[in-house]
């Protein structure tokens, strides 16, 4: 089990894969959604991003994975400037993104979804071995390997989406609201999973509305409000902060 996520094909670069954003502005056409975001995730860290609806959390992840280009600021991963890297080359660099609402291919089987996740030439060579590791991590996916992804429960689909992202052997995993729309017991399973993933040494950047739960699994977190970082700090500090408690933790 301990090797389940150690699927990296390439040796780590000397800088070890630090994700660094500084002064990022981005938006959609004329609409600006992010205003000078600076954020840093060290290798092996688990970092949370929380904030109200429309704060720009999804936009932030989309900037990191290249789906949206920043209009200003710098974006680096492992010392490499990502400003000009086409998004489809990022999985091969070790950035995997589990998008909001999972976005599985519902008409493909579980295993075919994993196959699409291993599309990069570098990943294809390791398909069987990584698939088996995903099945070790999620035995249920192995049982369901020939089932159409769209016919599975929400929790199972989230496992499949995470498995699909792991097929490129990422160094950092971006998770966008993995617990959204799931029953409380399944939410707990998802957070247990995130804890396991990070114990394996994989760097995690997780966006969540479920603030109380996410603060228990991450080391640090950023609070995003209307496209700006409103607060940041260690999870324990944030959990104890009266303003945060009032806004996000039900005030107790």
């Amino acid at each position, binding site marked *: 089990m301990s090797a389940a996520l150690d699927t990296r094909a390439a040796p780590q670069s000397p800088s070890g894969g630090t994700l660094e954003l500084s002064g990022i502005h981005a938006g959609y056409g004329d609409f600006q959604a992010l205003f000078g975001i600076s954020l840093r995730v060290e290798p092996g860290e688990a970092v949370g991003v929380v904030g109200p609806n429309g704060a720009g959390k999804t936009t932030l992840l989309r900037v990191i*994975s290249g789906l949206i280009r920043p209009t200003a600021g710098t974006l680096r991963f492992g010392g490499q400037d990502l400003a000009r890297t086409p998004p489809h080359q990022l999985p091969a660099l070790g950035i995997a993104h589990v998008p909001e609402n999972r*976005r599985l291919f519902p008409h493909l089987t579980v295993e*075919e979804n994993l196959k699409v996740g291993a599309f990069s030439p570098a990943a294809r060579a390791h398909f069987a071995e990584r698939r088996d590791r995903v099945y070790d991590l999620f035995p249920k996916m192995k049982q369901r390997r020939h089932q159409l992804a769209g016919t599975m429960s929400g929790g199972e689909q989230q496992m499949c989406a995470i498995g699909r992202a792991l097929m*490129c052997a990422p160094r950092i995993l971006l998770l966008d609201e993995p617990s959204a729309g799931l029953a409380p017991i399944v939410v707990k399973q998802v957070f247990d999973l995130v804890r396991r993933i990070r114990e394996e040494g994989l760097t995690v950047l997780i966006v969540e509305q479920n603030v109380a739960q996410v603060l228990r699994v991450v080391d640090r977190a950023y609070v995003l409000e209307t496209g700006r970082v409103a607060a940041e700090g260690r999870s324990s500090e944030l959990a104890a902060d009266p303003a945060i408690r009032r806004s996000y933790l039900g005030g107790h």
Partner: protein
Amino acid sequence: MDPFLLEAIVNGILLGGVFALPALGLNLVFGVVDVVWLCYAELVMVGMYAVWFLYTQLGWPLPLAFGACLPVVALLGVLLHLLVVRPLLAAPPINQVLATGGVLFLLQGAMTLIFRTDFRSLGVDMPPMEVGEIFVSGTKLAAFCAALLGAAVLWAFLKFTYVGTAIRAIARDREVMPLMGVDPQRIYLIASAVGGALAGLAACLLVVQLDVHPFVGLSFGPITFMICVMGGLGNMLGGFLAAFLMGIIVSVGGFWGTTEFSYVVAFGFFIVTIFARPRGLFAR
């Protein structure tokens, strides 16, 4: 059963196999690129000229002429994508239809200039075979088998390869494909080449049954579009099945009346289906 009716049904199935290829190609390109190649039948027509030219004018052996036709039309599909479709990917659908419609007339005009409007025939035919009480054209049977083989190869490509799986995925969700390491532009190009190759294969199977002329696309183009709409645009299996249905309708309609009558029946059936099942016969 009346042996002549049975013969008409068998011929309909054989015809359906040949209709199936352009229907698959058109649906593949539409499903992936989201653009209808209005000039699809004209790509087939150019392929037919290619076979005719290589075989009768340059004296190539027929299998070699067939073998060359596929890559030639695949290349044509790639050029169509790069020169016409890609610049219009973000344009309104009506502009895309008009542009590929323009290519239709361009190809008809170009072939008229080069080869004039004469009907060109390959002059090859295989002897008919007697199966039980009915006669089956050997040429049509061979074309049918080749069409099924082509469809099977396409199926295996889509089912088992990485690119094929990505093609099936991208038809549902374009936006997330880069997150999987897939460059959508590259998939569009590959789908256009495969769509062209299917038109090339259809050309090989039609050129042995029909004379080539610049407007030959009109004799199977409209029916191909009807088949695709009936099967559900972008639905490959639906189009494949609808091709056989249309083949049988045309053939049996021709058995009871004239060829013109058979097309009236086919169009009538098509109009009824699009009213009754606007998203295709096989939509769930």
